[in-house]
């Protein structure tokens, strides 16, 4: 079972990801509404997989990815963002994200992308 942290400033999206992730594979251990909360929760809950929004208050997603990877370079980060340009995707991957899906997304998109995060395990 993988320990999943959801990071998104939208409660609707946090609930959606929690509901639609495969519960046989993922245990949602915490949810953060901004990047600062995510950094604190990474230390507290030790998730191995993270879904990450990019446009957030306090600390945005790209900066949050940098900080999470500095703390734990084994954490697997899936970006889920409305920002669907190639440059943003590349930047997120360069900072340490492993995957990217764009909003709006459906349950199948999410499950496949999360599966890709952990398939080598």
């Amino acid at each position: 079972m993988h320990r999943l942290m959801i990071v998104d400033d939208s409660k609707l999206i946090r609930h959606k990801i929690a509901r639609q992730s495969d519960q046989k594979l993922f245990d949602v251990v915490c949810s953060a509404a901004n990047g600062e909360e995510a950094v604190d929760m990474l230390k507290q809950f030790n998730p191995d997989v993270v879904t990450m929004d990019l446009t957030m208050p306090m600390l945005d997603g790209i900066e949050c990815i940098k900080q999470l990877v500095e703390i734990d370079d084994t954490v697997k980060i899936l970006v889920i963002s409305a920002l669907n340009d190639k440059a943003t995707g590349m930047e997120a991957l360069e900072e340490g994200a492993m995957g990217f899906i764009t909003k709006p997304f459906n349950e199948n998109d999410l499950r496949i992308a999360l599966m890709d995060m952990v398939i080598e395990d």
Partner: protein
Amino acid sequence: MMENQLKIFIDGIVNYFHHTNDSSVFVGSPYLINDLDEISSDYTGSIAISGSYEGACHFTAPSALVRHLILSFGETDTSESMISDTVGEVANTLSGNARQKLGKGFNISTPTISKGRPCDTPTRADHSRIYAIPISWKSYKAALGIHLN
């Protein structure tokens, strides 16, 4: 604001509602308005745009539409806070998706939510014209207001 830029947002609206359980959305022809009041509904989510562009994007909808939208995603919490969250998320998604065509210089803010009349945003570029894009989903009417320089 150019016709091809408006089309980016129209395509974004269609794509967004195709991800609900009722994809039959109707997007009307954009038209010019003088003030957001002309289209403002119960709740409005506003995104400020900066960088290579300057302006804002506002998604405005009646609470009944937003409740229905929330339920269509399988969410059961239709509280006022969830309605506010949802209009903000729709505005964020429609604006963010425009970056695929408008590029990384199209910077978007986090959403600001208004109940009733939209707040005066400091982001309206001087003399920029506001385009309203009418949206019909189920039996409800909503709109996207955009001003962009």
